[in-house]
């Protein structure tokens, strides 16, 4: 009998412990994509312009659609007696049109001054979720709309959106390969370098105020640094041979780069002022493109020590080198995700490059792009998007996609090619 009781305890007790007494389960099928109505903002004064209102609405709709969290549609404004502050919103027509959420806004333009207020409503619950008011100049119009979308993402996901960030890239609009910066959606292009030479591989400092890049402006590929607010380009490394693919460490104290001063290209770190070079790899093969893990403890890089370029990972002091990519014969351009769990890279097969992501432990190798030739992936600071350069029938351009490969869209505009994107911090 005791045996029987023991057996019962052995089999029944774990089941009883696993159960959650008192918890009532509530389930629903599917995973709905929220439907968001973006109402064209209401003008508060006569000086307001309809095109400005439409531009703000289109910025919000673009950001929210790209986020993948909501299906946003621009809608003509419904009457709003009393303004946002005092007027009551009737959600019945929005609900009838199938919308879950609603963005309403109002703005006023006075000379060069712009005042905008946006509100996010939960139409289903008749409730305001966010209200933000922005004061600035007319040129800030798009930034205000992006900033509001950052807030919406914060509300919906718990993490602020990357919509106010920038992408630095190599642009040939001027006829030369110059470093330029644009908003994440391709607007507000700002050429940074104008040295008329070849400039390559830009990378933002962790505080987002400076950029390192390689320039041939003195004949040799040297590493330079410049502040975004300045035109002064400070040489960091002008050693003999290559000084290429510079990458800031997460704490901003070091820069990893490839130097060939001793013969073949090897991975080094230098201080932020260019001093104190420390060699990390010792190998007869070519080693380039170092990138830091977000915790600064590891560095991924490209090496052809096994015959063809592959991605390797080593500790930040150069020890414990191990191969990351095992598939594909030509893997380059590694970029560590901001959360540290994945590494994006480009693989060549069939004469074209494609973007892949792989887990930092070497598992889960996944192809993200299938059309054109795609290189130089760069993560957004929240890890939601990946920017990359792509050639798809026309000139090379900067594209952005979600981290799962969906929603690929060209963001760089105008003539000329765009390549080698680097995404700024928030």
């Amino acid at each position: 009998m005791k045996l029987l009781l023991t057996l019962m305890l052995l089999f029944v007790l774990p089941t009883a412990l696993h159960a959650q007494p008192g918890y009532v389960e509530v389930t629903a099928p599917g995973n709905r994509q929220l439907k968001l109505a973006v109402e064209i903002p209401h003008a508060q004064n006569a000086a307001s312009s309809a095109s400005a209102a439409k531009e703000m609405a289109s910025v919000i709709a673009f950001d929210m659609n790209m986020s993948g969290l909501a299906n946003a549609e621009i809608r003509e404004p419904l009457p709003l007696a009393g303004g946002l502050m005092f007027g009551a919103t009737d959600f019945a027509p929005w609900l009838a049109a199938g919308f879950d959420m609603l963005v309403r806004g109002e703005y006023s333009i006075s000379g060069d001054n712009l005042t905008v207020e946006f509100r996010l409503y939960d139409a289903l619950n008749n409730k305001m979720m966010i209200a933000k008011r922005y004061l600035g100049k007319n040129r800030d119009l798009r930034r205000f709309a992006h900033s509001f979308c950052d807030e919406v993402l914060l509300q919906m996901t718990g993490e602020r959106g990357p919509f106010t960030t920038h992408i630095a890239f190599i642009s040939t609009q001027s006829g030369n390969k110059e470093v330029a910066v644009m908003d994440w959606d391709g607007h507000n292009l700002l050429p940074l370098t104008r040295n008329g030479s070849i400039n390559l591989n830009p990378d933002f400092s962790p505080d987002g105020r400076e950029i390192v890049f390689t320039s041939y402006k003195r004949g040799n590929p040297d590493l330079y640094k410049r502040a975004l607010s300045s035109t002064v380009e400070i040489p960091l490394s002008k050693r003999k041979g290559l000084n290429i693919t510079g990458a800031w460490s997460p704490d901003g104290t070091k820069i990893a780069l490839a130097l060939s001063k001793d013969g073949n290209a090897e991975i080094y770190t230098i201080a932020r002022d260019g001093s104190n070079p420390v060699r990390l790899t010792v190998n007869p093969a070519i080693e380039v493109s170092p990138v830091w893990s977000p915790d600064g403890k590891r560095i991924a890089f490209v090496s052809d020590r096994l015959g063809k370029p592959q991605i390797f990972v080593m500790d930040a002091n150069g020890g414990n080198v191990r191969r990351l990519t095992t598939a594909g014969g030509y893997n380059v351009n590694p970029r560590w995700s901001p959360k540290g769990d994945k590494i994006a890279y480009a693989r060549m097969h069939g004469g074209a490059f494609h973007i892949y992501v792989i887990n930092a432990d070497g598992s889960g190798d996944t192809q993200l792009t299938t059309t054109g030739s795609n290189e130089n992936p760069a993560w957004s600071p929240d890890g939601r998007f990946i920017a990359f350069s792509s050639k798809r029938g026309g000139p090379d351009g900067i594209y952005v996609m979600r981290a799962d490969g969906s929603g690929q869209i060209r963001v760089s505009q105008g003539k000329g090619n765009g390549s080698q994107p680097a995404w700024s911090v928030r």
Partner: protein
Amino acid sequence: MGVSFSISAVIHLAVFLLLLWWGQLFPTTATVQETYYVDVVNLPVANPRAGSPTQKGNDAEAPPPPQTHESPLSMPSPPQPSTKARTAPTGKAQKAEKTEKADTSSDAAFAEKMAKLESKAESQQQEAALERLRKKVKTTGSGRTGMPAGSGSEAGSDYTAYVQSRLKDAFYQTISYTSKNPEVVVHLYIDADGKVTRQKIEKSSGDRTFELSVLRAVEKAGDKLVPPPNHKVFEGTFVFKPKGISRNKL
């Protein structure tokens, strides 16, 4: 040799005893008792759907008693006289027929009386059983809807099931998530007027989008809740998850 023999004997004895003990525990000759089920669900509740707080009462009349069938214990019906006897009556036979008729009429009356008595006793027993069930229902009163303890009235209905149903309806409209196996445990406080006064996320798998959809569902469901039974404050813990996705541990 001797040791091996004794060990073998002990093992055999042990196996024999085990089999004997096993046979006592599970006798092979155990008689299978036929089980009769009484439909206690439908007996006291006129409408099986009664139990929703919006349904009014279980004061509905009890269902009519089942039709009385011939009891297996009732007396056999008297044999019918043959047609031959009718067509050819003789004097002796007529006399005999008379006595037989008297006998059969007294038997039939007796049988009829017995049947009436048995029927009365049966109906009394049924009535008593029904009364006992009614009393039980009235005294216990707050079990799950459709169970014997469920009164079917607003006061005695399963309010948790009602809130779960309302949450489910709202959750259908709001569910959205970005992770693989999202799960959120929410503790709800509903005041005497049926208003959700507090909602506390006790556990979450960390998917903020899913949390938001759960909170929106709670808000939506809490819009039109019927007050809890007896206008007492209700507290309940609900675990939200997408349908078809199971998660071993939170």
